[in-house]
Every structure is written in structure tokens, then in C-alpha cells.
């Protein structure tokens, strides 16, 4: 991030990225379709399940693979869980950027730990799960998982209330975040922003609603939007989205088939028909897409990842020009930037 300052007022800013560029797209060309799944984990490492889902769905779309019902529901439950954990992280680090000395972050981290525990239970890892497979899931979930998710869904709203009490009405927080870092609706659309950033600007656009993938058309949920597109709206939209995610999880748990296959019959080394596909989902950070070109071999000819956070910071310079350095930090925090995804 290169800043030009006049006193403490920002006159120009140029985000310089690429410090975590690991060449995932190039590496993917040398790996088989299954071996790419661990790579996609490492994109947006705060929400690696959704990355797995996005990639697997793109491959399934190209290969015409039908995913079993139970796997679809489990995918929905797990990715909503991960959405909550990612939003908790986003809000927590945003408040930390405000200067709240780790306390809100640590309270949110407590709930995040609960989610990580459950992911650990099903996949064996706390952060990078490598749990989804093309055609479903790698293993069935244990029975405790369902009961613990139910308990989590039941008690999570109480904790969300606690967060609201903690900072929602804090005068200093309001003074710092309201009206700061405004992203107008027109600009948000022009730069192709997505996810909570776009919705905070007042555009009601959620891929889960507008282009339902998986089984999302069977759930009843709302798409929260903000009005001003400032830092506070982005914070508040995330809080509301967590509530909606809980609603989706509740419905999915009720509709979940008790038994059934969890993976379509896909061998570990498989080929896809030659062709190309663009599969995308609504990841916690926004619209995450995978563009896969296949030439019929066991490895993709080209894999392109469409990263939501890189697109979201396109108008960053506009948002902070004329504001103070402190606002820049706050705005950057409210965009929920994950470098692994920007740089790939």
C-alpha cells in the first residue's frame, strides 16, 4: 500500500498487492482435479470450505456429475457455518482496527473456535479442511456433528446479541465508522463489487437468491442490505447475514435426509470432457468463481480464480481519498480483505 499524504490527509493511495502471490493458477495446471482441492483451501483461508465447494461445483458442472441429496444439504450447512466464522473474523479484526484492543476480536474468536471444533470433527483439520470432493464429500459426518450444530444454532443468537451490546451503540465507534469510507451504489456496481460490500451499498444482489445453486432455492431467507455503503453498514450487513445464515442452517438441518450416499461415484483420478466452464458461488467475501478449461486430460488446461476481494478493493482509492490515515485503516478493515485470495 503506497500512500501519498498531506499531513495526515490522504491524497493518493495505491494498493500494492502480490506479496503472497504463490502461483496457484500455474500449479493447478500440473495437478489432477482432486489434487487441486488442497490448493483451493489456501485461497481464502478463512473460509476454505466454500472455496472447496466452489471448485467442486465448477468441476461437477463440466463433468455433469450429480451430487447426492445428503451431500448437498451438508455442503449448505457447512458453508453457512464457515460464512459465520468468516464474518466473525471480519468483524473482529475490523473492530480491532478501530483500536478496541483485541477484546471484541477475542469474544468473536470464542465462537469461531466452536465452529473450528466442529470442522475439526468432520475433517480432521482446524483451518484448511480439504473436505469436499468432486461429487460430494470425502467422508460422512459423524452423528455428533448434527447434534452439535443444532446446539450451536440454538445458542448463537445470544452471542450475536452480546456483540451488539458490546459495540453497536458505542459512540466512539459510531463516530469512527458512520459516514466513513463510503462506496456509492453506482461505483460498487461499476467496479463489480460483490458480497457484503455490494450489499452494504444498497444493491440487493446475492447469488444464493438471484442464481440459486445447490439447494439454496429450498430455503427461506432474506438478503440484508445497507443504505449508505459506509464502514458501519458493512459491519451491520455482516451481523445481519450471520443471523440469516443461522436461519438457513436451521432449515437445512430440518430437511437433511438422515441417510444416503454422500459422494457420487467419482474415482480419484478422473478426466473431464474437453470444454470450459465457469462455476461461481456466493462465498463469505463475495462472488467466488472458478473458470476451468479442460482438454480431456486428468489435469485442467487452465484454471482461473475470480477473487472477490481483489475486485472489491478496486475503488479503494476513491473511498479514502481526502480522509485521514486512521480512516484508511478502518475502511480497509471493513472490506474484509484476505491476502491469500487477492494474490492467489
Amino acid at each position, binding site marked *: 500500500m503506497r500512500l501519498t499524504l498531506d499531513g*495526515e490527509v490522504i491524497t493518493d493511495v495505491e494498493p500494492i498487492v502480490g506479496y503472497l502471490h504463490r502461483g496457484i493458477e500455474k500449479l493447478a495446471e500440473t495437478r489432477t482435479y482432486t489434487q487441486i482441492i488442497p490448493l483451493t483451501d489456501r485461497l481464502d483461508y478463512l473460509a476454505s470450505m466454500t472455496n472447496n465447494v466452489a471448485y467442486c461445483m465448477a468441476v461437477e458442472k463440466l463433468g455433469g456429475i450429480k451430487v447426492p441429496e445428503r451431500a448437498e444439504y451438508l455442503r449448505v450447512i457447512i458453508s453457512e457455518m464457515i460464512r459465520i466464522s468468516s464474518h466473525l473474523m471480519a468483524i473482529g479484526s475490523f473492530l480491532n482496527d*478501530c483500536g*478496541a484492543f483485541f*477484546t471484541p476480536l*477475542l469474544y468473536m474468536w*470464542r465462537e469461531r473456535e466452536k465452529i473450528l471444533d466442529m470442522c475439526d470433527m468432520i475433517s480432521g483439520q482446524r483451518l484448511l479442511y480439504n473436505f469436499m470432493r468432486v461429487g460430494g464429500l470425502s467422508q460422512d459426518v459423524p452423528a455428533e456433528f448434527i447434534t452439535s450444530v443444532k446446539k450451536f444454532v440454538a445458542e448463537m443468537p445470544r452471542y450475536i446479541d452480546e456483540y451488539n451490546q458490546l459495540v453497536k451503540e458505542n459512540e466512539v465507534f459510531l463516530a469512527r465508522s458512520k459516514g466513513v469510507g463510503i462506496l456509492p451504489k453506482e461505483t460498487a456496481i461499476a467496479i463489480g463489487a460483490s458480497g457484503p460490500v455490494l450489499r452494504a451499498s444498497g444493491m440487493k444482489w446475492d447469488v444464493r437468491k438471484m442464481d440459486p445453486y445447490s439447494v439454496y432455492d429450498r430455503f427461506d431467507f432474506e438478503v440484508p442490505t445497507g443504505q449508505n455503503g459506509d464502514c458501519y453498514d458493512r459491519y451491520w450487513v455482516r451481523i445481519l447475514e450471520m443471523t440469516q445464515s443461522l436461519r438457513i442452517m436451521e432449515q437445512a438441518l430440518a430437511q437433511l435426509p438422515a441417510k444416503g450416499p454422500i459422494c457420487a461415484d467419482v474415482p480419484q483420478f478422473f478426466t473431464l470432457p474437453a470444454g470450459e466452464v465457469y462455476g461461481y458461488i456466493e462465498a463469505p467475501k463475495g462472488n467466488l468463481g472458478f473458470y476451468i478449461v479442460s482438454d480431456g486430460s486428468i489435469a485442467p488446461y487452465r484454471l482461473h480464480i475470480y477473487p472477490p476481494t481483489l475486485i472489491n478493493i478496486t475503488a479503494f482509492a476513491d473511498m479514502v481519498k*481526502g480522509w485521514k490515515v*486512521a480512516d484508511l*485503516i478502518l475502511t480497509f478493515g471493513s472490506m474484509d480483505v484476505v491476502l491469500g485470495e487477492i494474490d492467489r
Partner: protein
Amino acid sequence: MTLLDQFQLFLKAQGWPEWAYYTVPALAGIVVIIGVVLAAVIVYIWWERRFVARIQIRLGPNRCGPEGIFQPIATAVKILLKEDIVPANADKVLHFIAPIVVFVPILMIFAVVPFDRGAILVDLNVGIVYVIAISSISVIGIFTASWASGNKYSFISGLRSISQMVSYEIPVVLSIVGVVLMTGSFSMIKIVEAQTVPFILLQPLGFLLFFMGALAEMNRSPFDLLEADSEIVAGYHLEYSGMKFAMFYLGEYGMALAYSAVITTVFLSGWQGPFLPGVIWFLVKVMLVFSVIVWIRSMMPRMRVDQLMSFAWKAMLPMALINLLVIAVEVLVIPSLQWLMLIINFGLAAVLILLFSRIFTLGGGRVEV
């Protein structure tokens, strides 16, 4: 009659030479004060770490000695033994002087803080003025440090520190003047003795203003702009290591301790209290004030520079002036009716806070460039 005076008389009676019975008690007092202060700083550092940890539902350092009480000592020893680095583009002399300029005035504040009846190094008749004057010297050290480091983050921090100190000094002084009006003396001992009812009850608004101003002057949250680690890395002591950093570090906590002690003396009736000896009461009260500071630090977001400034000039200064005016009138008209003063001043605080929350705006604007 302070303890030092008694010591002096004792030496005189023993037939010591004249120069000795002036210097020996003074030196002994200085050594005791420094020892007590450093010990207290270490305890309070430990207390802060544990207290914040408990607020954050964790345990905090508990491995060094019983419940981790030796943790700050380990930290101190380790920092002292670190390599001392002077950056290539630093101003060598100023880089060396700055930590001393920060640290020494903070120790000097304790010279006039009464720990108990008579337990004061020197009972100046302008004690409170001395405190205010001395406490603002360390900002010069901070600015020197930020300049001498030759680092842009440090320099921003230094600029912020100067502006912050200049703006918050005025409400602090004005809120103290209210106390002085009631007491009729600048002496710290007289101020304590005048508090049959603690001044926090008689002057709630004055206390609030002084507390906020003190938070700003000792760079504690929500006014900790100098070391906003998410904005300007670590602030003015970014380029310091080893012993010099230790001095800044101790100075930071010493400052918090000093202000806690001053608040205790001026608003919480110092050593006075039933049953227990005065020094225990004093330390307990200091601990209480310090805990509140830590508590606030644990959850408050940080203010922005311009908001900080406008808060000082547009809200705190007028409030302090109105408070001063009302107290002056009260002292003139009803000097003995303390219960009436109490009611009036609480009413005043409530009205002013309501009023200012309506008309005052924290500048939240975008500066067009």
C-alpha cells in the same frame, strides 16, 4: 510536619553536621520514592496484564512465580539485556536523551504525591501546579524521540502527541482549578485534608473532565493515538530497543500510575479512609483508578485525530469553563452547604452532558483535496 522533617530533626539531635542533615534525608527520600514507584509500576504492569486477560476470558501470564507476579521483572531484565540499536539516520544525541526526558519527569511527579499523612517527599505550597507543569514535560521527550528516530511513523506519532497534549492540558487545568477554589490552597496535603467529602461527589463533572484529560495525556485508550498499532505501527518508540525502550515502557506505566495517584489525591480524598492505615487506602484507591483505566482500554475504539481535537476544544473546554463558573459562584455564595453543592453539581453534570451530546458534533468530515 512530614516524615522527612522529623528525620531531619532526629539527625540534628544526633549532632550531624549541617550539610548532612539537609542532604541525607533528601537522598533517602528520593531512593525510597524511586524504589516504591518502580515496584508499584511492576505490580501494576502485572495487574494490567492479568486484568485484561480476565476481561478477555483468558488467564494471562501465570508462569513466572506465583500467578505470574514476576512476569514484569523477567520482561524488564530481558529488555535491559537486549542489544541497543541506533538507526543509521537517527539523530544520535537526541535519540539518547529522549528516553531520559520522558522518564525523569514522571518520577518527579511523585515528589509531591502524599502517600500517607506526612509521607510526602516535599510539601510544596504550589503542589498541584507543579504536577501539571512537570507532567507536560515528558511530551517534549516523546516528540524528541519521534524526531530523532528518523522514521515517518514515529514522526506522525510525535506530531499527534504535541497537538493532543496542548489541547488536553487546558480542560485538565480548568477542572483542577475548581478543586483549588474549594480548597483554597495549591498544596496537595491541604487538598487531601479539605476532602471530608471526596471531591468526586462534589465535582462529578470536574472529575469526568479531569479523568478524560488524563487519559489523553497519558495516551491511554480511547486517546492512544500515539501508539495506534494498526495505524502507525508502534508510535514514537518504534526505533528504540533495549534499555531505552525499557525507559519508555516504564515511563508509559509510570505516567498511568502518576495520574492515578493524582486523581486519588485530588478527587478521591487521598489517604483518608476508615479502619485501614492511610498508605493502604491510598494504594487501593490508586489500584481502583488504574483498573478503570485498564477496563476502558479493554474495549474502547480509538478516536481519530480531528475528532480528538474537536472533542477537546468544542466539548471539554466549554464544559470545564461552565463548571468552573458554577463552582466559583457556589464557593462565593454557599461555602458551607456541601449537600446543596452536591445536588447542584450533579444536576449541572447531567444537564451539561445532555446538552453537549445534542449540540456537539465530532468532526467526521472528508477533507477535499
